[in-house]
């Protein structure tokens, strides 16, 4: 019992913070401290959201498609590259610095170039999502492979296992925890990456919606779409955690035991 109380408090703490922020927000707008066109009230934002609900859903489906496809391709690419880099140390040495460099190029700077190259369709958006999601997954997979217990690899070798079986039974499963940590980060990048790419050209998607409402100075809609995007990213991250729980049941059991 003594242990349960703090855990409930710790779970409620972020919800409390969020409520406080919303309350302050409502108070500030209610007292007209800031002109309402600049900072719409929570109620205005909610109204804007439900008023545009069907349109938002349509745009969201486009953005989510881009984000999903980009994330999927990014993860596949990361898996391929990380696995090859782990297998061939020379590739690791040759590619790792390059990988890091690609991460220092700001997304926003690449996006216009992609649009120029690939036009206004889904291709540049998906490519941008691939570029942003690929790195965290690749690096976490590489770390994961390297975290495999050398003694366990030794043991498998003593059983007569070759590289493929060592990968399958030791390296890959050992990397799962780290992989999901990277995937969580990537999932949160995916939606934002797609939105940024949509800003710079296109006809559909939440990014396009954002630029439209921005040009119309519709602050309430702007706020509603920003909050919406945040929620989608959060849901995606939770989705990843859910998949992790399914794929790694031994972790789940470990946690239960600790309680």
């Amino acid at each position, binding site marked *: 019992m003594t242990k349960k109380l703090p855990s409930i408090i710790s779970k409620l703490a972020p919800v409390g913070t969020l409520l406080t922020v919303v309350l302050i927000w409502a108070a500030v707008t209610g007292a007209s401290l800031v002109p309402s066109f600049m900072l719409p009230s929570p109620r205005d934002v909610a109204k804007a959201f439900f008023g545009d609900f069907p349109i938002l859903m349509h745009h969201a489906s486009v953005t989510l498609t881009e984000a999903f496809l980009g994330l999927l391709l990014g993860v596949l690419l990361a898996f391929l590259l990380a696995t090859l880099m782990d297998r061939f140390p020379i590739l690791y040495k040759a590619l790792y610095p390059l990988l890091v460099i690609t991460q220092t190029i700001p997304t926003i700077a690449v996006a216009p170039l992609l649009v120029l190259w690939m036009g206004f369709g889904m291709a540049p958006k998906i490519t941008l999502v691939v570029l942003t999601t690929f790195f965290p997954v690749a690096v976490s997979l590489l770390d994961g492979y390297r975290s495999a217990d050398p003694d366990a690899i030794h043991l498998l070798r003593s059983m*007569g*296992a070759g590289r493929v079986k060592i990968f399958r039974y030791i390296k890959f499963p050992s990397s799962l925890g780290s992989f999901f940590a990277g995937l969580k980060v990537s999932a949160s990048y995916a939606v934002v990456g797609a939105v940024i790419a949509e800003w710079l050209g296109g006809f559909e998607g939440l990014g396009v919606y954002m630029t439209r409402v921005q040009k119309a100075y519709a602050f309430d809609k702007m706020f509603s779409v920003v909050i919406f995007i945040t929620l989608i990213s959060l849901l995606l991250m939770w989705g990843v955690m859910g998949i992790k729980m399914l794929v790694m049941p031994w972790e789940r059991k470990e946690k239960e035991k600790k309680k």
Partner: protein
Amino acid sequence: MPISPNSVLLEARGISKSFGENKVLENVDFTLKKGELVCLLGVSGAGKTTLFNILSGLITPDSGQVLLNGVNITGRPGKISYMLQKDLLLPYRTVVDNVALPLLVRGVPKKQAREKAASYFQKFGLQGTEKKYPNKLSGGMRQRAALLRTYLASDGVALLDEPFSALDTITKSAMHEWYLDIMREIELTTLFITHDMDEAVKLSDRICILSGHPGKIICDIPVTEPRPRAHDFNLSSAFLDYKRQIAENLIL
């Protein structure tokens, strides 16, 4: 070819191994007969683990041969497996899947491998743990699961590198009794490394001492005390004599 009792199961002939300038083993000869339990004693760094690695084929010796049932298996892993103090049960596989691993590595289909592994659980006191993950098991149980895996990995011969040294004395003692029983039941031949002289005398048919730089087997002490050995064997004067004999040789 049926193997008659007391025939040589595992043999090392003239094994030498250096790591760069460091000569670790020189001309080591060694035999293990079917059904025997032999202990390899030696100070830390004497080359015991290296010899195990050579016997299991993980390391190729500079010279010499390893024969299993008369077949040369030098430098060929997969015939003999060994077990470390660390049980190395993979946290992400259920106990039965951990135990079945050597069979899977050999290419046995999953279902068959699981069935075969599960068929030994009763015997190894592991019944009911099949679908659990290793973190749910006690230290003794984990070690038994690792032993079963070792047994399935090798055709009747187990190399154990300080298998019980991480266990508390009471669990260790219980494991000794259990191990002697199971070994007879499944006709397992055992070579094990230990630092613990009491453990060596209590369990062994023979004690080989590996010593020197480079390491050699300097003596081979038979422990003739009949089995099953009395619980107070370790309090008898015979027991002390064995220990004295080992100590004299170890100090060399």
